[in-house]
Structure formats: C-alpha cells, structure tokens
C-alpha cells in the first residue's frame, strides 16, 4: 500500500531521512518509533506528499501510495487515498462545528450530497460522536477533538490513515477511546494505519509491526523496540528478565511474570521524611463564569516533596497550579508560603517564592539566543551574572548561541527550568512538562527534578513518568481532590494510573527499582 524506495529527504543540505526503503502492506497498523528529531514526522508527512510539496526540502527516491507517486501528486490530489491527522487537531480544524468539519474533505472531493450525508452519519457512529454533532469544535475536550479530526480524515474513505502523536495531549482514558477507535478501523475496515507516538506504552500493543527511524528498519514490534533507544517499560522489563520473544502488551508479560514475581522481595517502604510545611492552601475555589474549575481544595506541601497532580483533562489541575502560584485566578480561599500570600507579592518577587512553568514553556522565552535569555534571567531576579548559565549547564548541554526556537523540546524545557530556578523559588510548579519528550529525555527530566533542592509539584497525564518521579500523588476530578497519598499507594490502587511495571509485578513501579532489588 505504501512503498518507500531509497528515500532520502534533505532540508538545507541536512539529511533527515537517509536511504529508507520500506513497504507497508494493506491493512497493517505500523508504529513509527525513534527519538525526537529522528525524522518520524518527516516520514509521516512524506506519505501524503506534504514533504516535499508543502514543507520544501528535496526528496530523492520514490514514495508510492496506492500506486500513486507523491512526486507527481501533491497532498490535495492524494486526499482521497491518505487521511492525515496532525499533532494539534484544534489548529487543523477548518469548519466550526463537528458535522461541517466531518464533511469538509468530501466537499473538496466533490461528492454528492446523498453520499456525504450517509458517510457523516456512519462516521459519527463509528467514532462515538453522534451526541456531539452540532457542538462548536472549540467546546470539545481534547479526546473528542482528536476523534473528530480522525473522523474528518475518514469521511473521504482513504485507504491509509496517518496519525502523528494522536494521544500525546490526552489523559489515559481519552487516549484509550481514541486508540480503540483506531483499532476498530484496522479490524473492521481493513485500513492501513501509520502512527508515530512518544507514549509507546499506550500504542505498542495494538501495532502489527514497527519501523525504527532513522535506521529505517521494519519488523516485529518487540524485536524493533528491544533494539530501539525508546521503548516502553514492559519491553525493558522483558529484557531485564530475559523473556523471549519480547512481549509488548501487559497481558502477555503478566503470563510470563510468575517466576520473576516469586524472586522479588517485598519493596521497602519509602522512608518517611519528617519535614516542615512549605506551602499551605485552604479551601481554594476557582470559578470562570458558571464553571467551577476548582472546588474548595486543601493542600499542604512539605519541604522536599515531589508531588504529581493527576486527573482527566479539565479536572482543574492547571487552574489549581495557577491559583496557587498567585498569577492565576483565585475566587476564594487562602494560600500561604512562609506566612505570605504569593498573590500579594509583585510578579518579580512572586516567582522567587513560587515559580510556575506553563504548558507552553516557549511562552516564557522571547529573546534571540539562549545566552541572552540567561542574562535576562539574572537581571530579572537580581542574581550575580552567570547564575542561570551555570544552572543550565548542570541540567543539559545547550549551545549558548542557539535560538530558543531551534532547540529540541528537552533542551527548551531545560532552558525554561534554568530561567525559573534562577530565582531560587521554594516551590516549583510544572504544568504538563513531559509533552513531546521521549523516554531518554523524560528519564533525564526525572533525574534533574529528583536532584533539585526545591519542592516540586507537577501536573501530568504521564503515568510512567509519575512512577519514576513522584513521592506523592494527588488525583483530581471535577475540581476536587479524590485521592492523596504516597505515590506507590495511590498509583497501584488505580487501574488507570498504574504504570506498566506495577500492572505486571504488583507493588513495583519502575524497571530501575526491580533491577536494584534483584
């Protein structure tokens, strides 16, 4: 169905993909894996001709999709063969309600009204969107938006569906919904699906084969992931335990895990650290119009804790972080850090008490080079020159003359962390920092946060990251705290928030812990 023949793609003399020859047959779900910057997005965009027709660059070799050469067919002429869903569905929407959005590609293809009407109804049912048909797109949740975007690509009845990070921004429940819908397409309609995803623990089990980039090796999912620099915990655990063939689903792994479970001792309980409180919040309420985002939350954070704040999209995590920091809205309630309410401080002093890294860390950056950002951070906080630079060097290797835009996600996050930490805040809040980070980058971030003297609170959907990082987990739902306790207790007791290792081995959370115990 899809054939890459000796494909080399170069941007400005720099090859992104080199001599990739791959064939993906009809009806297969192919997972594209590789580190950030290994050319995954470029590969996906080459499938429907966006590379090179839209993005520029040069493509040597040949890409054939359903027999059509992308060199002679621009994306719009492939619209009836390839459905493409990008990383941010909201940014790609053309219409303003669900039904019109679903019909858009069909209108471009010039289908008759009867056909369009029938396909829209079918797609609404297939993806469980029937109740949302008249809703404005902006009012949908992330998972719903992602399903609408997939539906909009499906109505043209393409033979190939290309998904770029379809679940990265979603909470575990919404991700399940989206992936279940994708699996149904493969099973019931025989569609060929190509997915790139950082959170391999979510998708690996559904894939038929995996393609490793930049090497261009394609093969059995387990075998490919074993050799890849990125792999979900289940694969790493299998490697540790020496299971062959490598299982990629929790279920397969669990059936092999009995001997390993018997060898493992009971995990040692975390030493309870007795430290003083650093931040106390009581009865915090945040209300936007009629919507109550946070409903009377009580929070006491002790020094040195690493807290993970979890919950569905829209459960009030971000609102709580912003309210606690003091820059966001707080309808009522009290927050005290060292007997001071951060809201009463000037912004410059506030960030030296409680710092927050927002969901889009790049919003904090506006200068032309990393060096300038560091100097600016020093002057903003009144620290001696070079403080921020030293901090940054201790976190990651970032070239000082680079433009912040050109950095990788991991490097940019390191820069923003350094900028915020220059003010030596007592509490550091982070909103979804792991978006766009691959496994090695996430491990590096977890290590950095563990070594910080600062107390950290982090809102995230990433259960595997929580297992590596957190000492305490707080789960929110509908603006209220529904669970709060030591990470191991909270995480292992919930099927949605449990990491893969815990699903296989019970009380253990990470592969590193298991390795240390053996």
């Amino acid at each position, binding site marked *: 169905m899809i054939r890459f023949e000796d494909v080399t793609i170069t941007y400005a003399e720099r090859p992104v993909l080199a001599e990739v020859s791959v064939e993906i047959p009809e009806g297969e779900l192919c997972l594209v894996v590789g580190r950030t910057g290994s050319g995954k997005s470029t590969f996906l*965009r080459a499938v*429907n001709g*966006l590379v090179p*027709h*839209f993005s520029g660059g040069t493509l040597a070799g040949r890409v054939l999709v359903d027999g059509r050469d992308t060199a002679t067919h621009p*994306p*719009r002429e492939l*619209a*009836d063969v*390839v459905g*493409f869903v*990008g990383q*941010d569905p909201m*940014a*790609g929407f*053309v219409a*303003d309600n669900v*039904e*019109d959005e679903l*019909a858009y*590609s*069909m*209108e*471009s*293809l*010039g*289908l*008759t*009204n009867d056909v*369009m*009407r029938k396909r*829209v109804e079918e797609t609404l049912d297939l993806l469980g969107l029937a109740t949302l048909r008249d809703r*404005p797109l902006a009012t949908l949740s992330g998972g719903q938006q992602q399903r609408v975007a997939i539906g*909009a690509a499906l109505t043209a009845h393409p033979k190939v569906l290309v998904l770029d990070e379809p679940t990265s921004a979603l909470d575990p429940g919404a991700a399940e919904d989206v992936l279940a819908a994708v699996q149904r397409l493969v099973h019931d309609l025989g569609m060929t699906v190509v997915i790139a995803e950082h959170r391999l623990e979510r998708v690996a089990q559904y894939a038929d084969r995996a393609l490793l980039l930049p090497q261009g090796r394609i093969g059995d999912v387990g075998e490919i992931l074993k050799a890849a620099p990125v792999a979900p915990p289940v694969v790493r655990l299998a490697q540790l335990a020496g299971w062959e063939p490598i299982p990629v689903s929790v279920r397969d792994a669990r059936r092999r895990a009995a001997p390993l479970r018997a060898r493992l001792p009971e995990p040692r309980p975390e030493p309870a650290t007795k430290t003083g409180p650093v931040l106390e919040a009581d009865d915090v309420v945040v209300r936007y119009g009629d919507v109550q985002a946070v409903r009377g939350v009580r929070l006491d954070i002790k020094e040195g804790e690493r807290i993970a704040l979890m919950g569905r999209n829209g459960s009030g995590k971000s609102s709580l972080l*912003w309210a606690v*920091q003091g*820059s*966001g809205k707080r309808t009522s309630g009290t927050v005290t850090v060292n007997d001071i309410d951060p809201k009463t401080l*000037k*912004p*410059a*002093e*506030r*960030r*030296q008490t409680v*710092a927050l*890294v*927002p969901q*889009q860390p*790049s*919003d*904090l*950056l*506006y200068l032309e080079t990393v060096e300038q950002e560091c100097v600016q951070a020093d002057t*903003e*906080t009144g620290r001696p020159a070079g403080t921020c630079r030293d901090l940054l060097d201790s976190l990651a290797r970032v070239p000082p003359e680079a433009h912040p*835009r050109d950095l990788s996600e991991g490097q940019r996050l390191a820069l923003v962390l350094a*900028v*915020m930490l220059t*003010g030596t805040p007592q509490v550091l809040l982070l909103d979804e920092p792991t978006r766009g980070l691959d496994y090695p980058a996430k491990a590096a971030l977890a290590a950095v946060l563990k070594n910080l003297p600062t107390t950290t609170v982090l809102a995230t959907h990433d259960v595997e990251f929580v297992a590596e990082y957190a000492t305490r987990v707080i789960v929110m739902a509908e603006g209220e705290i529904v669970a709060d306790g030591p990470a191991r207790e909270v995480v292992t007791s919930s099927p949605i928030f449990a990491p893969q290792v815990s699903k296989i081995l019970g009380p253990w959370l990470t592969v590193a812990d298991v390795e240390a115990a053996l």
Partner: protein
Amino acid sequence: MRLHSGAWWLWALGLATAASRTTNPLLLGLVLAVAGVVVVTCRANTPWAGTYGVFLKFGLLIIGLRVLVHAFLGGVTGPTVLFTLPQVPLPDWAQGIRVGGPVSAEGLVFALYQGLLLATILSCVGAANALANPRRLLRSLPAALYEVSVAVVVALTVAPRLVASARSVRKARQLRGDAARGARAIRTMLVPVLEDALDRSLVLAASMDSRGYGRTAGISRKDRVLTGTLVLAGLFGLCIGTYGLLAGAYTGWPLLVLGGVLAIAGLRVGARRVPRTRYRPDRWTPTAIGVALSGVAGAVMLVFSADPALSPSTVPLQAPGLPLVPALGVLVALAPLAFAREA
C-alpha cells in the same frame, strides 16, 4: 430545521435600509424595538447569539460620540442656545471651522437623531449576527467565490486565537516576573504571539492541503481570466449603481442592473469549473422566504414613502409625529415571531 442564514441577513438589511431613510426618533425606536424583540425570541442557543448586546453597547457609544463631536465642532445652529463652550480662536485660513462656541438645543437634537440612525443600523447588523451565523452565510456564497469565503472564514478564526495567544503570553510574562511596559513590553509580547500565529497558520494550511483544498479539475488560464474580469466588472457596476441610487440620480438603475448581470454571469462561469459540492446547503424554504420578505417590506414602504414626518424638523424644534404607513411597514418585520421561532 435550520433557516437559510441569508434569510435573516436579508431581513436585517431590510430593517437597516428602512432605518437609513428616516431620522424620526419614534420610527427609529420602533425599528430598534422590533429587531430586539425578534432577536430575543428567535435566536438559537449558539456562541454567537450573545453578541447582540455588544452591538447595542457600541451603538450607545456612537450616539454619545456623535453628540460630543457636534457640541465641540458645531454644525447645525439654532436660536435656543443652551450653553456656550470657550471657543478656540483659529487663523483666517481655517474660516468656516469652529471649535467650541455656543451649543444650541436644535444642534444637539439633530446630532442625537443622526447618532440614533447610525446606532439603529448597527443594531440591525447585530441582530442578523445573533440570529444567523455569519460563517454559514459565507458558506452559501456562490461556488466561484469559494476561495474568498474560505479566506474570510479562516481570518475570522485567527482573530480570537490571536487574542487567546496574546493572553497566554501575557500570563507567562507575569510568571517570569517581567514587569516591562511600553515599547519593550510590546516587543516581548509580539515575538511569541506572531510566532504562534505563524505556526498555527502553517498547520492549518497543511491540514487544508491534505484534505483536498484547492483541488483543481484543470481550470484553464483563459477561463480564470474570463471569470475574474466578469466578476470584477460586475462588482464595479454594482458599486457605482448603488452610489448613484443613494445619491438620488436615476442613472443609478441601469448601471446597477448591468453590474448585476455581469457579476452573475461571472459567478456562473466560475461555478461551472469548481469541482466542489456543499454538504447540507441551506435551502430557501417558504419560512425563510417569509422571513426575508417581512424585513424587506419595511424597506420598500420607507423608500417609496414621501411622508414629511420621516425627517422631522430640528430648526425650529418640533415634536416628531409617528408616520402611520411607514410604522406599519416596520411592524411587518415582527412576522418571524409567528413562524420562525427556534425550538
């Protein structure tokens, strides 16, 4: 069943045209009331339905401005001087212009009428906007104008997103403790906001391209030039014709007709070449036609009415009377209440 959005826009344009023919405050008040009642009863529960209030507030602002400007710069003068503002002496070459000076009751009433006229027209546009999604109206444009309508729709989505992105950057700036003001603040805001806007538009363009936007069924260059010329000439004719009509010259009619014919011909030629279809297009149901006609009725009555009460005299000041026939014409626009309520 959704009404054709063009129906509400025609209805509102009819009311606006009616309003533009009179400065009688009673009649204008009647138009305002009619539009208001219909909006409140007939609007659906949609995000854009709430915009009516914004238009009303804007109308009040316009009235206020009109009166203020008149008080300062003068214009219509009358014998009843209410108070005198200090006058700014101007050099000889600025003769005929006056800043400050006596403010008369007649002048103020005249300005008030004029302001009310503008505000009423604005409220009619607001009413149409609240009753029918303007983007849906764009979707009903002739196929030959498809590219233009998509561009407008996209532009309409960009504005609110720019605002949202500016807000999030401003919040982020606060997190950094940056209290920059003035030019520096603008620069530090502008870079990320524009970056974000550019990124988004690239994503949108890629998405539209992958979904078949701009698929051409091999339109030849000759056809494109022909369509373009016809449409442009037609629109030009329409503009000149309308201007002629409004200026009261009867040469307006032939130009208007000629322009209309050319424009329609251009759109027809263009539409034949566009391989697009439209999903669930709005249809001109009897209800929709009824709504449109009820609005146009008032306009027709006022355009052809020679009732002197339409423009009540302000010098000397007179209490305006209510011209009966035009008033009845405006009241016809209440008809949608009977048959076009949203469920």
